[in-house]
């Protein structure tokens, strides 16, 4: 039975406007970042400002969505997608602040990936009608009415955020190692070992949160369904993603894997994460189909 929450036209307008504006600003920030990467240094400051404004509006959108659905806006592809994009940008700003601007240029590549994720939420459903990303305001199913929802989904969003940042750094590493050092964009990028350091930090954060997500999911499943693990495709793919990053961390920490091999593992991990998020929902059936 479809359970739709009534939302006033004004509230809906505010929510949609905030989403559209934030998405537009992310796209604009990506454009200015591309200019920066092609050598227009002044574009960097403007891009950063637009990126921050977009993030603030995105925060406002998530709060508004939460008010409109009268619960935490963590359920379904649309809400989770937004939460995870927001978490990715937040994590980037936190890492940037903690590392005192050492990784400013990561933002240039990150905005492009944010635009890629947003296009999945906005453009893909238009191009492929079989992919239905439901934007309706729906009430929670009884099984989801649990405080574990907040912990489990937040951990998942920050896990994906960490992996996305690691992927961003992996892409940067590939470019930096192949492009001539004195030409743009390599000229304004940190050296490969610094990029790798960022990739490792982001992967560590992702791995930690992914571990928390799997554990809290198991605890919640045990409370709700009487079993902590059911080999559901989403569970299995979350575990596969965890395994890939476990291999990466072990290979790096114990066998000293760096460079191309480490980057390849991070890229595979990101693909596994992407499949867990999108592929499992559209190609496989399981109990994690909450809209």
């Amino acid at each position, binding site marked *: *039975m*479809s*359970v739709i*929450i009534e939302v006033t036209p004004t509230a809906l307008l505010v929510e949609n406007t905030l989403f559209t504006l934030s998405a537009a600003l992310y796209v604009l920030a990506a454009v200015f970042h591309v200019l920066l990467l092609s050598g227009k240094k002044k574009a960097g400051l403007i891009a950063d400002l637009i990126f921050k404004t977009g993030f603030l509006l995105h925060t406002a959108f998530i709060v508004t969505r939460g008010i409109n659905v009268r619960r935490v806006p963590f359920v379904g592809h649309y809400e989770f997608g937004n939460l995870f994009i927001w978490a990715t940008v937040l994590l980037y700003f936190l890492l940037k602040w903690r*590392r005192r601007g050492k990784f400013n240029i990561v933002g240039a590549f990150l905005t492009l990936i944010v635009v890629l994720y947003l296009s999945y939420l906005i453009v893909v459903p238009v191009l492929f009608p079989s992919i239905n990303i439901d934007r309706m305001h729906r*009430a929670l*199913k*009884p*099984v989801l*009415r*649990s405080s574990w929802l907040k912990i489990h989904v937040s951990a998942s969003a920050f896990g994906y955020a960490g992996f996305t940042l690691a992927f961003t750094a992996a892409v940067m590493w590939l470019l930096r190692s192949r492009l001539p050092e004195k030409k743009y964009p390599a000229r304004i990028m940190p050296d490969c070992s610094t990029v790798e*350091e960022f990739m490792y*930090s982001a992967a*560590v*954060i992702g*791995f*930690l949160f992914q*571990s*928390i997500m799997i*554990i809290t999911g*198991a*605890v919640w499943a*045990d*409370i*709700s*369904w*009487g*079993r*902590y*693990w059911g*080999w*559901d*495709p989403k569970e*299995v*793919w979350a*575990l*596969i993603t965890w*395994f*890939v990053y*476990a*291999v990466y961390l*072990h*290979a790096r*920490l*114990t*066998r000293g894997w760096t460079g191309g091999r480490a980057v390849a593992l991070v890229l595979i991990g990101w693909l596994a994460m992407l499949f867990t998020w999108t592929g*499992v929902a559209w190609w*496989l*059936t*399981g109990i994690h189909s909450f809209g």
Partner: protein
Amino acid sequence: MPVLKRIVRYLGSMRAGLALLVLVTVVSAFAALQEQAEVRQNIYGSWWFAGIIAFSALNLLFCSVRRLGPLCRLAYRPPVVRSAADLRKMPLHTSVKLGDVPDRAAAAPALAAAAFRAAGLQVSGEERGIVFGERDRAGYFGSVFTHFGLLIILLGVMIGALSGFEHINGGIAGSSFFVEEGGFTVAVQEVRMVQEDDPAIRPRVYSDVTVTQKGREIASGTVAINEPLRFGGNAIYHTTFRYVSALTIKDTASGRQKTEKYWDEDKLRLGEEGNFLYLVRFYPNFSLNTEGIPYSKNYLPENPVLAGILFLDNRPVHNVYLHLNRTETIETKDNVFELTMIGFENAVVYTVSRNLGRPLLATGAVVLVGGLVLCFAFSPRRFWAAYEENTGEMIIGGQSYRNRYSLEQTLDKITAAIGGREEE
């Protein structure tokens, strides 16, 4: 014996660990793309998959035990540094001019110790003019804790699989069922449905149950979704709720009448074999959409209907909608039946399970997360400082365990602290 030693060494190696991890990943990825019901039996429930997991557990155990000694040595026996020249050989080192500090050689150790403390290091004293400080020693043991956490989880899974069971059953208020595997009886005392503000939202169903063993009550309480009843390693979970309809069936030829309770998908036989009413589903607020397909407007019992399909000679004939207290007449080849739904009630379906591995699973999860935090939030760092007479410089060298970035940051803090003192 050497063969056994070699096998144990290989099983505890990182190479074997990574190979097993890749193998589990590939098998799981393949399995996730297959039909789920088959996969549970043929892959996840197979002896060879259990074997891979067992080998992974052995690898974790051997690997952790093997690493424990070297890690303890690494954590508690820092390398011996004898001179400033040794520090200059370290991959990360720097030199700071001490400038106008009076009696530099005598003041240098105290200056270095103060700078180490300012950078958050624990200074463990000075030996032959070399000051030593370190922090986050616990970080060395993160991987061991993580691996032991995983091992505890695997042990919990094993105990759960060997000692546990899963039993699905249920009933209406006043009914009971025996759980053979657990040797206890579950009696359903009362079933209550609580509607949400929006009646279109699936309501919550609460049921009061009493558990008895050999006539003695061992547990009682209310079960609802996300609120299981736990007792002695067992748990009763609310899985779903169903509707049970009470029907009166009157055989007009013989005048015989009976009243029975029926669940969705039950078959109600009407005279000869092959003639029956297949009771498809109960709708609390029945309606038909524009295509004539039945649905429930919401969960309010405003128009309760039990929908079924009449089969004659095993062939579907037409739909039958049994409204509350309204008699429907059904004709078969040789007879006429009068059917009336005289009531309905809620039934609950439970999953009763036992998993004695639960405490281990919880402990393992906590140890695992704690280990990961130790691994990644604690970056063990060591610094030494020595005054070099001939250059008048303080040489500072550092070593980290896995995190060069935090080492560089701490070195910056130390040099800044020494520089600050110098200015004073």
